[in-house]
């Protein structure tokens, strides 16, 4: 406890002594983490969007109006027996019409003018996430398509699969950018802390000569890195919140409508924590690297 208090006091004194260098490190980390946070923010909302898309039926089996009970049972049995099917739901013609009116309110009046309900009943099928074998899915869709009483089989999995591929690619690119930014931030912190070790070389020399444990020599510099990283992260989160608030105030509903979401959301708590902890970790690594020479 005494050691931690010593490290903290020494780190604060050092930062106060060289405010400019400390501010440079804090702002550099903030810039990097802001970029990181932007990607996380986009990812969080894209995740909601993809979730909504994948929550809808991945495979729809549309039934003829005159399908008899036996044929319907056969289709149902095919779905039940398939290892690719996670669950399915029967949507009656009436349910389908109600959904249509809900999703397209502008066209609700139009549907009321029709004599008959043109929308077919259907089985909406959710596939297992491991059901990646395209051939197996195509085979299932083909078998269902050949079943009596089946009008059409719509298979959206391919589109969602391609979407997930694009999302995974974007995430990969984001990860690469984030890694580069994190390394740059750590190097900046290391440079600032190295400057601090140079500025305090007389103290470090005395500490070494009196037999100070290596922990007491390096500890303050590591803590200084952690503080700079943590402050940078807080600045980044603040900027993110400010930017998000401004953007949603002016363009939020427009963007949400374009994406098909109700609203945009800020970073979830876990992601915000990740940004802050990530900043402190980057600072810690930078401080530890720079202080290595101070311990010898």
């Amino acid at each position, binding site marked *: 406890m*005494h050691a931690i208090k*010593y490290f903290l006091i020494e780190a604060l004194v050092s930062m106060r*002594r060289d405010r400019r260098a400390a501010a440079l490190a804090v702002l550099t980390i903030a810039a990097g983490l802001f970029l990181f946070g932007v990607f996380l923010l986009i990812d969080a909302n894209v995740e909601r969007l993809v979730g909504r898309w994948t929550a809808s039926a991945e495979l729809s089996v549309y039934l003829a109006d005159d399908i008899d009970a036996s044929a319907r049972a056969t289709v149902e049995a095919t779905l039940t027996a398939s290892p690719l099917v996670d669950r399915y739901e029967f949507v009656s013609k009436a349910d389908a019409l109600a959904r249509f009116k809900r999703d397209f309110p502008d066209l609700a009046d139009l549907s009321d003018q029709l004599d008959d309900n043109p929308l077919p009943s259907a089985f909406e099928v959710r596939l297992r996430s491991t059901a990646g074998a395209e051939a197996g899915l195509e085979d299932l869709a083909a078998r269902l398509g050949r079943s009596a009483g089946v009008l059409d089989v719509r298979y959206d999995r391919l589109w969602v699969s391609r979407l997930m591929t694009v999302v995974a690619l974007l995430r990969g690119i984001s990860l690469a950018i984030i890694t580069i930014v994190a390394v740059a931030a750590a190097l900046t912190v290391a440079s600032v802390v190295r400057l601090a070790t140079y500025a305090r070389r*007389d103290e470090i020399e*005395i500490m070494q000569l*009196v*037999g100070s*444990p*290596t922990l007491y020599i390096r500890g303050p510099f590591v803590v200084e890195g952690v503080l700079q990283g943590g402050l940078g992260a807080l600045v980044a989160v603040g900027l993110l919140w400010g930017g998000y608030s401004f953007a949603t105030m002016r363009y939020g509903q427009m963007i949400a409508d374009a994406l098909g979401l109700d609203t945009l959301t800020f970073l979830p708590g876990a992601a915000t924590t990740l940004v802050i902890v990530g900043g402190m970790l980057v600072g810690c690594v930078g401080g530890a690297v720079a202080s290595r020479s101070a311990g010898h």
Partner: protein
Amino acid sequence: MIEAYHLSKVYSRGVYALRELSLQVEKGEFVFLTGPSGAGKSTFLRLLLCQEPPSEGQLMVSGRSLSELRPREVQAYRRGVGFVFQDFKLIPRKDVFENVAFVMRVLGAPEAQQRRKAFQALKWVGLQHRMNAFPTELSGGEQQRVAIARALVNDPALVLADEPTGNLDPDLSLDIMNLFREINARGTTVVVATHDRELIRQVGRRALTLDQGQIVETS
């Protein structure tokens, strides 16, 4: 306490700072190392502080070979050694009290102990009334006394001093040497490197004269 056997230190291009040096310093003894510049006095003190390893031979303190100490053992060894430099090496950003207490602080001593021992050390060198002054506000002699207080604050068994009076006038030099005599009178082994033969004569302790890395005279 200190035993050197055929100790040599060679730098690049085959330059011998110490050559086959053998000597002994008893526990509680006060010994001068003297000789011209480049004789090897400071090099020997650096080896004693484990700042550099010897090239050949053995250097033992209290029966332990310094070459065989691991890094943590070197740290532990140094806690038992006080050192005083010609240029004082005080930290200008810290006041007198902080400069002395600093040693206890970086060794993890409790604050109450830091305050007590630092005050005791400053009182012993007669500077307890200048605790809040900064090094730049002190005279050369006062700065060196602060350095001596810092060297003593951890009750070392061995005190090393490298030209401690090099920047001081003769009267102050003698005052400083008297402090070292008092330190020695308390049982601490003292080794002082100096080229001031007049000072050695006035203090009257065993002197080992080095030249080109070897002992050429013992008096």
